[in-house]
């Protein structure tokens, strides 16, 4: 009985030290659970995907990231169900056509740049990948075009 108690005590100490070892190392990564913070995180920007299915390029990229514990894909929301079935996470940005159609005139450039920045900080990826344009190039291109186009209606 006494031996068993000592054994348990020893285990408890061992576990406590393990917990110390696994202290979160990505303090800004608020969307990562403690467990996920221990693994590799990949953020994939796939902003200009079109069509009903994931592009070959994206599928290939995701295959390469098989060993990552957490993969987040930033893409149009029609791919969410597919990505969910692959156990990936996802984010999205309003696309150019949606913004023009909405007729909402605001400082989209600032808003979307802040949003991109927060996606990066809240997931704190170890690696970033882009399929198509980088978020910066994507935003530059479409903000320029959105601003030169008349809004659908105001």
């Amino acid at each position, binding site marked *: 009985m006494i031996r068993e108690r000592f054994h348990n005590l020893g285990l408890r100490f061992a576990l406590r030290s393990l917990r110390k070892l696994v202290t979160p190392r990505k303090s800004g990564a*608020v969307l990562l*659970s403690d467990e996920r913070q221990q693994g590799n995180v990949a953020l994939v920007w796939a902003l200009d995907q079109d069509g009903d299915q994931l592009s070959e390029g994206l599928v290939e990229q995701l295959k390469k990231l098989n060993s990552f514990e957490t993969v987040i894909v930033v893409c149009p*929301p029609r791919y969410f*169900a597919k990505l969910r079935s692959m156990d990936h996470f996802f984010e*999205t940005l309003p696309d150019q056509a949606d*913004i023009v159609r909405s*007729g909402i005139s605001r*400082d989209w450039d600032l808003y979307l740049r802040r949003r991109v920045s927060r996606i990066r900080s809240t997931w704190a990826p170890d690696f970033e990948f882009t399929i198509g344009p980088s978020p910066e190039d994507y935003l530059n291109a479409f903000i320029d075009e959105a601003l030169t186009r008349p809004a659908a209606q105001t």
Partner: protein
Amino acid sequence: MDLDVLYLADLRFPGGSTTSLKYDIRACKQAGLKAGIIPLSSPLFARNQILNASLIEEIHSTGTVIVPITERPRAKVALLYHPSLLDAQVPCRTKFDADTFYLVVHQTTRDRRGRPNFQTERWSDLAVDWFGHRLKLLPVSNIVRKDLELNGLSHALHDSDWTNLIDPTDFPKKRSRVPNSQLVIGRHSRPSFDKWPSPPVALACYPASPKFTFRMMGASQPYLDQFETIPGNWQILPFSKLPVASFLQTLDVYSYFHSDSLIEAFGYCVLEALACGLPCVVPQYLEDIFGDACFYAEPEQASHVYDRLWSSCSMMEKASEKAVSYVEGTFGLDQFKHKFDLACDTSNVSRPTVPKRDETSARPVIMAVTSNGVGLGHLSRQLAIAEAIGPTVKTVFFSMSEAIEIARSIGYLAEFRPFSRRLELDTETWNAYFFQELLDALNFYKPSLVLFDGSVPYAGFLGAVEAYGKCPRVWIRRGLWRTDRPQSSSLDGHFDAVFEPGELCHAADPGFAGNDPERIARVHPVLLSPPDKQLGKEEARQELKLPKEATLCLVQLGSEANFDMTLARQVLLEFLDREPDAIAVEVRSPLHLDDRTDFHERLLSRKIFPLGRFLKAFDYAICAAGYNTFHENIATSLPTLFIPNNNPEMDLQELRADYGARAGWNLSCSADDPYGIGEKLQLLHDPERRKLMTLACSQNNDCWNGAHQIARQLRVLAQLPASLTEKN
């Protein structure tokens, strides 16, 4: 936007102030003048006090404008329509220009015991600093005028009163009483204590007597509990049990006495009684308002007046005629033009005329926030409401639903944020994240209204809308909660309105979501595809590429994310084997991935959202009993076997399904009863049986307008521009 009269008013008052506004806007229209309203919120009420339905109806029927948030109207006369609204706690989000601006004083500044009702010392500063006009007061009666003079506000008084009006045609004259019959004496008023005399006074003015019955509408239970015994000749009715005019028709005499602390500013209840031709017995001080139209008495003398009236039919008749003619001559709607002209009088203009400005900005933005949910219920209701509000506003969806593509594909701007559950985050961390995300979006989109549909408003949501603070927020939450969640329902007070979409089985709802009709606005069921938007059978089948002639069974067993429908699916396949003429059509949203393994040559699959428009394609259905499916199928009179998902995190689907089955609208069976499912599918396959169910469903006609009912109230609450497609 040019108006003759602009009312800055709280549309939630339950009593005389609102009734007088109702008749003011009617009279204004009859006088050929144009009225507009900017809704404000008086600190006298809980934040989520419901709008006064009768007033909303009048606004709608008279075409009175709710000034859109994006407009800056100009008016000849602007009326801040209650003294509680000239208060530092009351924001006014709409700017306006007015030739004259008045505070209409509906209440004395102090009660009978000298206690102040308002902070009158702040009125002048607030009028100048916030409304840009010198303080000018329009009392509703000579009683209020005297009170204002006594309290040092003579300098701000206008020469004329803004007298309350009434439309006598709404108050049919009471028929003569049978001689020597028992006299029915009555009164009505809000249940607040000050409207009722203390027990000793009440027993004096409403005494036990075989000659009289006292019928009282609005006495509260706490008030009545003060009495040791209630006299046997008292009849008590709850406030608003009957429409006022109907209640008054049941009386012979009206008698109104109140607590000794109250000074009635006007006594609108007495005006309503006089309009019906009821002889009225009231305190002496009301003579200032009602002249010789009433009998005046102290409470202890009141029974002498009743005696005289009881014994003299001619006295009753004479009093009745005098009452009606006094009301018509003094308070009829035709008096409006006169009081308006006096208020327009340029010698009383409170500020020099300002140059006309025509400021109109872009369409306002609404932000529809939805929780993730297991299915598409939250998102579907928000979409239904957004569609009902129409294109005069820009609706942005801000959702945790992974099916947000559905809103985007319909044409809405849609944002997504991941929810805590799948991320396996603790609630506190996720709420802190969501707070930042939503606040940034609110500051960016600058919405005029935030709608939330979900069972629990997250702390991050509440914190962000509070921090933004520039618009009303509204909670849409369906009923049929499975358990009491006081921590959820207690959050009502964070919202400016709480709407409960109608449930056909409301009568069996245990009521855990709350039952207070003053705080929760109940509307018809909210449907994304109401019956009048549905395609006919042939057209729907053609669009879905389904056989023209076959007997088609719709299959919609929900997302199955948190509930196992395997048994129901197996039974369905066996049923298809048994019935060679039956074809089943499983319908999923276009976002759903094909992951099922149950194949059958007569089990077809279609992907479509929303399905409602196509429901007439089907002869019968087997479905989960979620809110939207249940109500859409019954609205379509589609005979359905409902298999409730009774996962503990869901609403009481089994109650909904069983209630409908008992009413004859549908069949119901538990998901773990293969025998029952088989038998009931067989019943549905019988055309005669289906006819009976269709007939039973069709009894629920004309109650599918919930989305438009909510939209209409949101237009008032958030001052949204009217939609051309607005429905009653």
